[in-house]
Each structure stands twice: as structure tokens, then as C-alpha cells.
């Protein structure tokens, strides 16, 4: 029994060490180890933040529309949800509300035909292309 206990201890410790080494290797093999390269969140922030230079300083709330609003569009729900969350995160403390109900609206489109959809749903608007599929839509400009 003594021998079995020694084996059990060494086995448990050894296996834990093995798992720990795997953890280290997993961390090492993750991409973007170069501190100079941006992580995905920082990259998204860089895409969204130019919006703030094109709206009045007192803008407190944005609308948000994306591929998931376009009829019959194919999209990955997880990606859409993540991009919406990252947009809110980037623009905090301004609120980002799904829909077209606000004067300034962030558009996040990778699919063609969004202008037709906007024409059907907004009486008058202007679109400013920010880049990387990001648009700033100004509803009912003066």
C-alpha cells in the first residue's frame, strides 16, 4: 500500500506538471505575441473611433445597424453580437442602441445592398464611409 501511495502522489504531481506545461505551451502558441501588434479589441476600436470626430461633442447616443438587420442576409450571429458589443465598448460612455431611431447611426455592413435597405427605412439621410465596412449614417440632416 505504501508503494501505491507513493505512486499516487508522484502520479498526481507529475500529471499536474504535465498539464501545467501544456498550459504554458498553449499561451506561447497563441497569436499576437508581438506587443507591437494590436489585439482584436484594439483593432476594432481604431476602426470605430473616427466616428467621434464626425459627430457633435454632445452626442450621447448612437443607433446601430449591421448585416443582421438586412433581410435575407447571411451572417454569423456570434460575430455580429461581438462587433456590436465592441462598438459599445469603444464608444463608451455614449450609448449604442440597435436600430435606426437616433440621429447618428453606426452602420456595420459587409454585405452589399444596405443602401437599398436604408432607403426603405429612412426618409432622408447621409452616409459617411469610415472604412472597413463602418459607416456613419446621419438621419434627417438639416
Amino acid at each position, binding site marked *: 500500500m*505504501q508503494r501505491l*501511495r507513493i505512486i499516487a502522489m508522484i502520479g498526481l*504531481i507529475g500529471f499536474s506538471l504535465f*498539464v*501545467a506545461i501544456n498550459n504554458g505551451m498553449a499561451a506561447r502558441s497563441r497569436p499576437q505575441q508581438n506587443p507591437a501588434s494590436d489585439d482584436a479589441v484594439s483593432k476594432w476600436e481604431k476602426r470605430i473611433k473616427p466616428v467621434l470626430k464626425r459627430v457633435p461633442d454632445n452626442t450621447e447616443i448612437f443607433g446601430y445597424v449591421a448585416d443582421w438587420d438586412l433581410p435575407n442576409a447571411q451572417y454569423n450571429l456570434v460575430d455580429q453580437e461581438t462587433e456590436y458589443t465592441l462598438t459599445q465598448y469603444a464608444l463608451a*460612455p455614449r450609448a449604442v442602441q440597435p436600430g435606426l431611431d437616433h440621429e447618428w447611426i453606426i452602420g456595420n455592413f459587409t454585405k452589399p445592398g444596405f443602401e437599398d435597405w436604408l432607403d426603405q427605412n429612412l426618409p432622408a439621410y447621409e452616409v459617411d464611409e469610415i472604412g472597413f465596412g463602418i459607416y456613419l449614417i446621419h438621419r434627417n440632416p438639416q
Partner: protein
Amino acid sequence: MILQSFAVFGFALLAGIGLIHLFWENNDPWAILLKFFLGIGAGLGITSCLYFLRLLLFPGQGGFILIQAGLLGCILVALMVRKRLSFGKFSYRVNTSLVQILPGLALIAVLAVAMYYSIAFARIAPHGDYDAQAIWNLRARSIYRLGDAWEQAFSPLINRNFHMDYPLLIPLSVVGGWNTLGSEVLRVPSVISILFLFGMAGIMFAGIAGLRSGSQASIATLILLATPGLLLISTFQTADIPLTYFFLASATLFILASNQNSRGLLCLSGLMAGMAAWTKNEGLPFILIMAVCTMVIFGVRRVRDTLPALLAGLAFPLVTIVLFKINISASNDLFTNNGLQEIASKLFDPSRYLQIANHLLPELIRLGEWPISIIVLLLIYGWIMGARKSSSAAERLSWLIPASQFIIYMFIYLITPYDLEWHTSYSMSRLLIHIFPLSLLSFFLFVNTPETVLNK
């Protein structure tokens, strides 16, 4: 910037260590080590409570360092008055037996890997995971950027996943760090996560070293730090690991309080339970669990002595939580559109129990994402090593704490207003991680130590 991000919490950590030392006179080496790691949560927790009160009472957001310094000053004065300013003389003999050294060396290796992992992920994912971006860091950003108008950060317009009723220990610690450093330093949330992860490991090690032996402590802690799922969650910058830290801290202090018949330690256990509730809503039922455990383990006859001590520790965080709930009126998502009738119908729906069980079994097997089930491994290990008969009721019954929290979590799933399939898939692995360290603590208090079985 990472060193500055640690330094900004320096006074809070010292204050926390001092507070633990004030309430607990033991100067054994393992106790001093335990005080150090308990001080992390105590210091950060009390500072964030004080900072919240400061935000409520005065305009602006400055003063985080002053609060820490003031807290440290008060604790130093208290220590001087009670003539407890030093840790006294102590000597420690290093045990050079193989049974101590081998697990110790393995622990050092696992610790080094865990540190590397944490630092690597802090660089790869400096903004944490989805929940950090949707809830915790978003809250911190909103509060920080709003300045005097910080209460608007709780507007329901800011993201439909916002969980406005979530408490503020983590976000306010981040805000305080940013205000002190003068900008949104990216490393501050990572540093807080690292402090709580290694603080939890330190509590596990020092607690078991004091209650059992160094080798037992090394084995328990290296299993904790080798757990892939726990390490990964610690990089998410959410409140899960800090919550787990406070659970473990409260349970460890509770066991020590029972063994040493110390109301001071019981008070500290209450403080940690209160801080769990100030970290995440799952801490609220934990407070009830600790109160019930106090009555069960200390005995109903001693309730008039013991419960007030626990409640005294709970008082300050509870007052903070009450003020938070009053000032930031937000309903809990579990009970919105989920009245008594709906809850009752769910409780009597057997399909929900089956659905939960169908998720639970694979999650338990996968617990912590070990390649071989850690539960199976530990059961085999425990069977081989044999059980220790403890004279301490708290040690024998310590399993009640994780078991009760587990039952509460399953109850929450039963009554959830969310789609049950989604809710269990989304959160069950994380919730099981909350109670994993508590279970490890109970297990390694229950199982024979290497010294015990090898010396037979």
C-alpha cells in the same frame, strides 16, 4: 506600466495585511503568509467600498490613493495602540525531507508557468474576454469617462447585456487605478486579475500548510494553478476569479475561527463573505450559507456569540451594497418578468431537472478542462491515500460550503427566465470553477497528508 499598475494598489494591500494582522494574533510562518494573501482581498475590497462612498458623497473621482493611505494610516494607528505593529520573532526550520521538497519544487514550476500564462494573456488580450468588454471593463470605462456624471454609467441604454445591478468591487478598483495613473492604463484590469489569482493560490497554500502540512499544501496549490479552465478564466478580467478568491478566503478563515475559537477570525470571514457579495451577485447567497454554517458548526447555543462576530465583519460591505442598490436602482435580470407563479411552475417541471442534469454531468467530467477528469483523479487519489479523521467540526463539515453554493447555482438554473439550454451552456463551467477551490480545500483537509501515510 505594469509595475505602476501594481504600485497603485500598494497602500491598499498593506492596509489589508495590517487589518488581518490586527484581528489575528498568530505569528507562525504559515499564518504570516496567509495574512499577506488575505490582505490582497481585504485591502482592495475595503478600498473599493470607501471609494464608492466617496463617489456618492463628493464630486469628481480623485482621491483613490488618499483613501488607501488613510485606511493604512488608521490601521497602523490601531496596530500601535494594540502593540501589534510587528510580527514578533519567529524562526522557521526548513524541512529537507523528500516528501516536502518534491511537491514544493513542482509547485514552484507550476507557479512559474501560471505567471507566464497570466502575463502572456495580459499582452495578447489586454481588454479581457467578451464579458469584460460587455460588462466589467465597460462599466469601468463608462464610470471613468463620465467623471462627475458617473451615475449615468448605469443607464439601461448602454448595452442590453449590461447587468446594471452587478456590484462594483472590480470596476471601481479599475476606475480608481485609472484615476490615480491619470489615464486608462491598459494593464490595470490585468493586474487586478493577477492579484486575485495568485492571492487565491496563496490562501490555498498557506491555509492548508497551517491546517495540515507543507507537502499537502503544495499538492493542493499546484493542482489549483495547473487547472487550465481556471487559468483561462483568470485572464478574462471578469469578476469570477475575485469571487472565487473571496469564497476561499471566507471558508479558510471560518475553519480557522472554529479551530481556534476566535471571534476575530470569524469577523474576518464575514468581511470576506461580504466582499464576495460586493464582487458579484453570487456572493449574496454565499453570505446566507456562511451564516447558516456558523449556526450549524459553532452550534445553536453559541449563536449569540458567534453570529454577531460574523455579522460585524459583513456590516461594512453590506452597507455599501445596500447604498449601491438604493442609489443605482436596477432590477436583477433573474427576477425581471419572472414572478412567483413562473418560478413555481419551473420548480415543478421535471424536464428542467433533466435538462440541467444533462449539462451537469459532462461539465463535471470536464471540470477545469483537465485532459483527464480531475474529479476522477482526485477520487482515486483520495481512495489510495485514505481519509483523515479530524476532531474539528469545521474541517469535517467544510464540504457543506461548496455543496450549498452548488445547490444554489442549480436552483438558479431551475428558475432562470433565460432559455435554459443557453444559460447552462453559457455559464455552467464558470460557476463550477467558483466552487472548485473550495472543494479542493475540503478535499485536502479530508485526505491524509503524504507525511501521515508515508510515516505509517
